[in-house]
Protein backbone atom coordinates (compact mmCIF):
# COMPACT_ATOMS: atom_id res chain seq x y z
CA UNK A 1 0.00 0.00 0.00
CA UNK A 2 2.70 2.41 1.06
CA UNK A 3 4.79 1.56 -1.96
CA UNK A 4 1.90 2.28 -4.26
CA UNK A 5 1.44 5.78 -2.87
CA UNK A 6 5.09 6.63 -3.24
CA UNK A 7 5.06 5.79 -6.90
CA UNK A 8 2.13 8.08 -7.60
CA UNK A 9 3.75 11.05 -5.88
CA UNK A 10 6.91 10.64 -7.86
CA UNK A 11 5.15 10.95 -11.18
CA UNK A 12 3.52 14.27 -10.26
CA UNK A 13 6.70 16.02 -9.22
CA UNK A 14 7.18 18.61 -12.01
CA UNK A 15 5.01 21.66 -12.56
CA UNK A 16 3.34 21.76 -15.97
CA UNK A 17 4.99 24.54 -17.97
CA UNK A 18 2.96 24.23 -21.11
CA UNK A 19 0.65 27.12 -20.17
CA UNK A 20 3.49 29.38 -19.05
CA UNK A 21 3.81 31.20 -22.40
CA UNK A 22 0.08 31.88 -22.38
CA UNK A 23 0.23 33.43 -18.93
CA UNK A 24 3.20 35.57 -19.91
CA UNK A 25 1.51 36.63 -23.11
CA UNK A 26 -1.55 37.72 -21.15
CA UNK A 27 0.59 39.92 -18.91
CA UNK A 28 2.47 41.18 -21.95
CA UNK A 29 -0.71 42.20 -23.72
CA UNK A 30 -1.93 43.99 -20.57
CA UNK A 31 1.23 46.07 -20.34
CA UNK A 32 1.29 46.72 -24.08
CA UNK A 33 -2.21 48.11 -23.95
CA UNK A 34 -1.62 50.23 -20.85
CA UNK A 35 1.69 51.68 -22.00
CA UNK A 36 1.67 55.23 -23.21
CA UNK A 37 4.97 56.11 -24.76
CA UNK A 38 5.83 59.73 -24.11
CA UNK A 39 5.01 61.56 -27.31
CA UNK A 40 6.24 65.04 -26.46
CA UNK A 41 9.66 66.22 -25.41
CA UNK A 42 9.36 68.81 -22.70
CA UNK A 43 11.69 71.70 -23.42
CA UNK A 44 11.19 73.47 -20.12
CA UNK A 45 11.99 72.23 -16.64
CA UNK A 46 8.87 71.36 -14.69
CA UNK A 47 9.52 70.41 -11.13
CA UNK A 48 6.02 70.12 -9.75
CA UNK A 49 5.02 71.47 -6.33
CA UNK A 50 3.50 69.15 -3.74
CA UNK A 51 0.05 69.57 -2.27
CA UNK A 52 -2.55 67.82 -0.12
CA UNK A 53 -5.90 68.75 -1.62
CA UNK A 54 -5.48 66.74 -4.79
CA UNK A 55 -8.02 65.59 -7.30
CA UNK A 56 -7.41 62.91 -9.86
CA UNK A 57 -8.03 63.34 -13.56
CA UNK A 58 -9.43 60.03 -14.69
CA UNK A 59 -10.20 60.84 -18.30
CA UNK A 60 -6.85 61.37 -19.91
CA UNK A 61 -8.25 62.20 -23.33
CA UNK A 62 -9.85 65.35 -21.97
CA UNK A 63 -6.54 66.70 -20.74
CA UNK A 64 -4.29 69.10 -22.53
CA UNK A 65 -1.00 70.14 -20.97
CA UNK A 66 0.67 73.50 -20.71
CA UNK A 67 4.22 73.49 -19.40
CA UNK A 68 5.62 76.60 -17.77
CA UNK A 69 9.16 76.73 -16.45
CA UNK A 70 12.73 77.77 -17.14
CA UNK A 71 13.96 76.65 -20.54
CA UNK A 72 16.41 73.78 -20.69
CA UNK A 73 19.56 74.85 -22.47
CA UNK A 74 22.64 72.89 -23.52
CA UNK A 75 24.92 71.62 -20.81
CA UNK A 76 22.42 71.50 -17.93
CA UNK A 77 21.97 75.25 -17.91
CA UNK A 78 18.55 76.80 -17.63
CA UNK A 79 17.32 79.95 -19.30
CA UNK A 80 14.42 82.30 -18.92
CA UNK A 81 10.85 81.18 -18.37
CA UNK A 82 9.15 79.59 -21.32
CA UNK A 83 5.66 78.30 -22.08
CA UNK A 84 5.21 75.07 -23.97
CA UNK A 85 2.04 73.58 -25.43
CA UNK A 86 2.34 70.12 -27.00
CA UNK A 87 5.65 69.99 -28.85
CA UNK A 88 6.55 73.61 -29.32
CA UNK A 89 7.51 76.55 -27.18
CA UNK A 90 5.07 79.41 -27.42
CA UNK A 91 7.12 82.54 -28.00
CA UNK A 92 4.29 85.01 -27.55
CA UNK A 93 1.88 84.37 -24.68
CA UNK A 94 -0.85 86.00 -26.78
CA UNK A 95 -0.81 82.95 -29.04
CA UNK A 96 -2.01 80.70 -26.21
CA UNK A 97 -5.52 82.01 -26.80
CA UNK A 98 -5.84 80.77 -30.38
CA UNK A 99 -4.12 77.45 -29.71
CA UNK A 100 -6.34 76.65 -26.75
CA UNK A 101 -9.47 77.87 -28.50
CA UNK A 102 -8.84 75.40 -31.33
CA UNK A 103 -8.39 72.61 -28.79
CA UNK A 104 -11.63 73.58 -27.07
CA UNK A 105 -13.56 73.35 -30.34
CA UNK A 106 -12.24 69.82 -30.82
CA UNK A 107 -12.90 68.78 -27.21
CA UNK A 108 -15.59 70.89 -25.50
CA UNK A 109 -14.95 69.27 -22.11
CA UNK A 110 -11.28 70.17 -22.17
CA UNK A 111 -9.32 70.25 -18.92
CA UNK A 112 -6.09 72.21 -19.02
CA UNK A 113 -3.40 70.80 -16.79
CA UNK A 114 -0.83 73.41 -15.87
CA UNK A 115 2.53 71.84 -15.21
CA UNK A 116 4.39 74.71 -13.67
CA UNK A 117 7.88 74.67 -12.19
CA UNK A 118 8.03 75.54 -8.49
CA UNK A 119 10.48 78.36 -9.08
CA UNK A 120 8.39 80.10 -11.73
CA UNK A 121 6.90 83.47 -10.98
CA UNK A 122 3.17 83.99 -10.78
CA UNK A 123 3.22 86.70 -13.44
CA UNK A 124 3.62 84.20 -16.27
CA UNK A 125 1.04 81.84 -14.77
CA UNK A 126 -1.48 84.68 -14.45
CA UNK A 127 -0.83 85.78 -18.03
CA UNK A 128 -1.48 82.26 -19.27
CA UNK A 129 -4.62 82.04 -17.12
CA UNK A 130 -5.87 85.31 -18.60
CA UNK A 131 -5.36 83.83 -22.06
CA UNK A 132 -7.26 80.71 -21.03
CA UNK A 133 -10.18 82.85 -19.89
CA UNK A 134 -10.17 84.58 -23.27
CA UNK A 135 -10.15 81.22 -25.01
CA UNK A 136 -12.96 79.94 -22.79
CA UNK A 137 -11.03 76.95 -21.43
CA UNK A 138 -12.03 77.48 -17.84
CA UNK A 139 -11.41 74.07 -16.28
CA UNK A 140 -7.82 74.01 -15.14
CA UNK A 141 -5.73 71.86 -12.89
CA UNK A 142 -2.55 72.88 -11.13
CA UNK A 143 -0.60 69.69 -11.52
CA UNK A 144 1.11 68.74 -8.27
CA UNK A 145 2.51 65.73 -6.52
CA UNK A 146 1.26 64.16 -3.34
CA UNK A 147 2.88 65.65 -0.29
CA UNK A 148 5.28 63.30 1.40
CA UNK A 149 4.28 63.31 5.06
CA UNK A 150 7.17 64.39 7.21
Amino acid at each position, binding site marked *: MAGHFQKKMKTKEDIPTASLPDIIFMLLIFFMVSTVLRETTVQVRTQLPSAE*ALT*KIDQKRLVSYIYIGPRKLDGNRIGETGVQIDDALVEDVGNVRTIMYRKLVEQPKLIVSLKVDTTS*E*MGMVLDVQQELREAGTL*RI*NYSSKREIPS
Partner: protein
Amino acid sequence: MALLKKKGRREAEIPTSSMADIAFLLLIFFLVTTTIDVDTGIGMVLPPKLEDDVEPPPIKERNVLKILVNEQGMVLVEDQPSAVQLIRQEVVTHVMNEGADPRYAEAATKALVSIKTARETPYDAYVSVLDEVWMAYYEMWDNEARKLGYPDYKAYLAVIDANDSENEIKDRIKAAISIAEPDAA
Protein backbone atom coordinates in the same frame (compact mmCIF):
# COMPACT_ATOMS: atom_id res chain seq x y z
CA MET B 1 17.84 5.88 -46.41
CA ALA B 2 14.84 5.09 -44.33
CA LEU B 3 16.57 6.70 -41.38
CA LEU B 4 17.03 10.02 -43.21
CA LYS B 5 13.37 10.28 -44.08
CA LYS B 6 12.38 9.82 -40.49
CA LYS B 7 14.71 12.61 -39.37
CA GLY B 8 13.29 15.13 -41.87
CA ARG B 9 9.79 14.58 -40.58
CA ARG B 10 10.73 15.17 -36.97
CA GLU B 11 12.17 18.64 -37.67
CA ALA B 12 8.93 19.92 -39.16
CA GLU B 13 7.62 21.11 -35.77
CA ILE B 14 8.65 24.53 -34.39
CA PRO B 15 10.48 24.46 -31.06
CA THR B 16 8.24 26.19 -28.53
CA SER B 17 10.42 25.87 -25.48
CA SER B 18 11.96 29.34 -26.00
CA MET B 19 8.57 30.97 -26.50
CA ALA B 20 8.29 31.76 -22.80
CA ASP B 21 11.71 33.40 -22.81
CA ILE B 22 10.84 35.61 -25.75
CA ALA B 23 7.58 36.59 -24.12
CA PHE B 24 9.40 37.33 -20.89
CA LEU B 25 11.80 39.65 -22.65
CA LEU B 26 8.96 41.60 -24.22
CA LEU B 27 7.13 41.64 -20.91
CA ILE B 28 10.12 43.10 -19.10
CA PHE B 29 10.52 45.76 -21.78
CA PHE B 30 6.93 46.91 -21.39
CA LEU B 31 7.10 46.66 -17.61
CA VAL B 32 10.01 49.05 -17.60
CA THR B 33 8.56 51.53 -20.08
CA THR B 34 5.06 51.62 -18.57
CA THR B 35 4.17 54.49 -16.32
CA ILE B 36 0.79 54.06 -14.71
CA ASP B 37 0.66 57.52 -13.26
CA VAL B 38 -2.67 59.15 -12.69
CA ASP B 39 -2.52 62.88 -13.13
CA THR B 40 -3.15 64.61 -9.85
CA GLY B 41 -3.46 68.27 -9.12
CA ILE B 42 -5.53 71.03 -7.62
CA GLY B 43 -8.62 71.55 -9.74
CA MET B 44 -9.94 75.03 -10.33
CA VAL B 45 -12.51 76.65 -12.57
CA LEU B 46 -11.54 80.04 -13.92
CA PRO B 47 -14.18 82.77 -14.00
CA PRO B 48 -15.55 83.44 -17.47
CA LYS B 49 -14.29 86.46 -19.34
CA LEU B 50 -16.01 89.67 -18.29
CA GLU B 51 -17.64 91.69 -21.03
CA ASP B 52 -16.44 95.27 -21.06
CA ASP B 53 -19.84 96.85 -20.51
CA VAL B 54 -20.93 94.52 -17.71
CA GLU B 55 -20.01 95.51 -14.18
CA PRO B 56 -18.86 92.68 -11.91
CA PRO B 57 -21.50 91.80 -9.32
CA PRO B 58 -21.21 93.76 -6.08
CA ILE B 59 -19.76 91.84 -3.15
CA LYS B 60 -19.87 92.93 0.45
CA GLU B 61 -16.45 93.60 1.89
CA ARG B 62 -17.05 91.48 4.99
CA ASN B 63 -17.87 88.37 2.96
CA VAL B 64 -14.45 88.32 1.35
CA LEU B 65 -11.44 86.89 3.09
CA LYS B 66 -8.49 88.54 1.44
CA ILE B 67 -5.24 86.60 1.31
CA LEU B 68 -2.20 88.28 -0.14
CA VAL B 69 1.02 86.49 -1.01
CA ASN B 70 3.99 88.73 -1.65
CA GLU B 71 7.24 88.34 -3.56
CA GLN B 72 8.99 86.59 -0.68
CA GLY B 73 6.13 84.15 -0.24
CA MET B 74 4.95 85.90 2.94
CA VAL B 75 1.26 85.91 3.69
CA LEU B 76 -1.13 88.68 4.65
CA VAL B 77 -4.61 87.62 5.77
CA GLU B 78 -7.05 90.54 6.00
CA ASP B 79 -4.06 92.90 6.10
CA GLN B 80 -2.59 91.08 9.09
CA PRO B 81 0.71 89.21 8.73
CA SER B 82 0.06 85.50 9.04
CA ALA B 83 1.57 82.12 8.29
CA VAL B 84 0.62 79.53 5.70
CA GLN B 85 -0.25 77.01 8.42
CA LEU B 86 -2.76 79.42 10.02
CA ILE B 87 -4.76 79.96 6.83
CA ARG B 88 -6.78 76.78 7.17
CA GLN B 89 -8.21 77.76 10.55
CA GLU B 90 -8.81 81.31 9.37
CA VAL B 91 -10.82 80.14 6.35
CA VAL B 92 -12.91 77.81 8.52
CA THR B 93 -13.73 80.62 10.97
CA HIS B 94 -14.54 82.92 8.09
CA VAL B 95 -16.91 80.58 6.28
CA MET B 96 -18.59 79.03 9.34
CA ASN B 97 -19.07 82.39 11.05
CA GLU B 98 -22.80 82.65 10.17
CA GLY B 99 -22.90 86.34 10.98
CA ALA B 100 -21.59 86.05 14.52
CA ASP B 101 -18.41 88.08 14.16
CA PRO B 102 -18.71 91.29 12.09
CA ARG B 103 -15.19 90.78 10.70
CA TYR B 104 -16.11 87.48 9.06
CA ALA B 105 -18.73 86.33 6.55
CA GLU B 106 -22.48 86.74 6.96
CA ALA B 107 -23.31 83.23 5.78
CA ALA B 108 -21.48 80.22 4.39
CA THR B 109 -23.25 80.60 1.04
CA LYS B 110 -22.00 84.16 0.68
CA ALA B 111 -18.44 83.60 1.87
CA LEU B 112 -15.64 84.14 -0.58
CA VAL B 113 -11.91 83.64 -0.38
CA SER B 114 -9.74 85.83 -2.53
CA ILE B 115 -6.10 84.99 -3.18
CA LYS B 116 -3.98 87.74 -4.57
CA THR B 117 -0.36 87.45 -5.57
CA ALA B 118 2.30 89.76 -6.86
CA ARG B 119 3.73 89.09 -10.29
CA GLU B 120 7.01 88.01 -8.71
CA THR B 121 5.46 85.60 -6.21
CA PRO B 122 7.03 82.15 -6.54
CA TYR B 123 4.58 79.54 -7.82
CA ASP B 124 5.09 77.11 -4.95
CA ALA B 125 4.12 79.75 -2.38
CA TYR B 126 0.90 80.33 -4.26
CA VAL B 127 0.17 76.59 -4.51
CA SER B 128 0.78 76.02 -0.81
CA VAL B 129 -1.67 78.82 0.06
CA LEU B 130 -4.25 77.53 -2.41
CA ASP B 131 -3.77 74.04 -1.02
CA GLU B 132 -4.46 75.23 2.54
CA VAL B 133 -7.65 76.97 1.42
CA TRP B 134 -8.85 73.83 -0.32
CA MET B 135 -7.98 71.72 2.72
CA ALA B 136 -10.10 74.08 4.82
CA TYR B 137 -13.07 73.44 2.53
CA TYR B 138 -12.46 69.68 2.62
CA GLU B 139 -12.37 69.88 6.41
CA MET B 140 -15.71 71.71 6.51
CA TRP B 141 -17.28 69.29 4.06
CA ASP B 142 -16.06 66.39 6.17
CA ASN B 143 -17.66 67.98 9.23
CA GLU B 144 -20.97 68.49 7.44
CA ALA B 145 -20.93 64.92 6.22
CA ARG B 146 -20.33 63.70 9.76
CA LYS B 147 -23.35 65.70 10.93
CA LEU B 148 -25.44 63.87 8.35
CA GLY B 149 -24.18 60.54 9.66
CA TYR B 150 -21.51 59.64 7.13
CA PRO B 151 -17.92 58.82 8.13
CA ASP B 152 -16.54 61.52 5.81
CA TYR B 153 -17.26 63.61 2.72
CA LYS B 154 -15.95 60.92 0.38
CA ALA B 155 -18.51 58.46 1.69
CA TYR B 156 -21.23 61.08 1.25
CA LEU B 157 -20.13 61.72 -2.34
CA ALA B 158 -20.22 58.00 -3.11
CA VAL B 159 -23.78 57.76 -1.77
CA ILE B 160 -25.14 60.74 -3.70
CA ASP B 161 -23.38 59.60 -6.85
CA ALA B 162 -25.12 56.25 -6.54
CA ASN B 163 -28.52 57.85 -5.89
CA ASP B 164 -28.03 60.67 -8.38
CA SER B 165 -29.25 63.15 -5.80
CA GLU B 166 -28.29 66.74 -5.08
CA ASN B 167 -25.10 67.51 -3.21
CA GLU B 168 -26.57 69.29 -0.19
CA ILE B 169 -23.21 69.91 1.44
CA LYS B 170 -21.83 71.71 -1.59
CA ASP B 171 -25.04 73.75 -1.80
CA ARG B 172 -24.52 74.90 1.75
CA ILE B 173 -20.76 75.44 1.63
CA LYS B 174 -19.66 76.35 -1.85
CA ALA B 175 -15.93 76.53 -2.44
CA ALA B 176 -15.69 80.08 -3.72
CA ILE B 177 -12.04 80.86 -4.34
CA SER B 178 -11.15 83.78 -6.50
CA ILE B 179 -7.74 84.45 -7.98
CA ALA B 180 -7.31 88.19 -8.07
CA GLU B 181 -5.24 90.04 -10.61
CA PRO B 182 -2.12 91.67 -9.21
CA ASP B 183 -2.10 95.44 -8.97
CA ALA B 184 -0.73 97.10 -12.02
CA ALA B 185 2.73 98.23 -11.08
